[in-house]
C-alpha cells in the first residue's frame, strides 16, 4: 500500500515541477526538493524498523557495536548523498552532483578506515602469536 502512495507523490511532484519550470524555474527547483524530501521520509520510516532488527541481530550474535554503527553511518551517508546529488543533477549542475558523489565516497572511506585498522592490528597480533 505504501508503494502506491510513494508513486503518487513522485508523479505529482514531476507534474508540478514541469508546470512551474516554464514560468518559474526556481520554484520548480523547490517543488522537486519538497517531493524528494517526502519520498525520503516515507522510506526512512520503513528503514527504521529494519535497522532495529539489524541492531538486535548484532547484539544477539555479539558483533562489536562500533561495526554496526559504522555500517549504519555508511548507509546514511550514501542515502543523503544520493538525495542531494539527484536533485542537483536534475537541474543541470551535473558537475556539482559528481563532486557531491565524490565527496560522499571520500567520507565513507574516512569512516571505514578504523575498521580496516582494527583488522590489520588483529591480524598482526595473530601473526605475532604464531
Amino acid at each position, binding site marked *: 500500500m505504501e508503494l502506491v502512495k510513494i508513486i503518487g*507523490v513522485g508523479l505529482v511532484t514531476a507534474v508540478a515541477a514541469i508546470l512551474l519550470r516554464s*514560468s*518559474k524555474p526556481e520554484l520548480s527547483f*523547490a517543488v522537486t526538493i519538497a517531493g524528494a524530501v517526502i519520498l*525520503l521520509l516515507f522510506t526512512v520510516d520503513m528503514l527504521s524498523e529494519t535497522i532495529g532488527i539489524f541492531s538486535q541481530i548484532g547484539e544477539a550474535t555479539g558483533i562489536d557495536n562500533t561495526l554496526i554503527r559504522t555500517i*549504519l553511518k555508511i548507509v546514511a551517508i550514501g542515502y543523503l548523498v544520493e538525495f542531494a546529488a539527484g536533485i542537483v543533477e536534475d537541474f543541470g549542475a551535473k558537475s556539482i552532483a559528481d563532486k557531491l558523489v565524490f565527496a560522499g565516497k571520500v567520507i565513507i572511506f574516512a569512516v571505514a578506515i578504523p575498521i580496516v585498522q582494527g583488522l590489520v592490528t588483529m591480524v598482526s597480533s595473530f601473526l605475532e602469536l604464531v
Partner: protein
Amino acid sequence: MDIDIIFKIAAVGIIVTIICQILKKSDREDIATLVSLVGLIIVLTVVLDMVAGLFDSIRSIFDLF
C-alpha cells in the same frame, strides 16, 4: 505532510506567475520582480523546514553525528 505541500508550492508558483504577468502588463516591472522574490522566499523557507525535518529524522534513526 503528504502531497498537500507540493500542491501549496505549485499554487504559490502559479499565483506569483499571474501576479507578475498583471504587474508587467501595467508596466510595474520592479514590483513584479519583488513579488516573485517574495514568493520564492516563502517557498524556500517551507522547503527548508522539510529538509531540516528529514535530516533530524535520519540523524535520530541512524544516531549519526
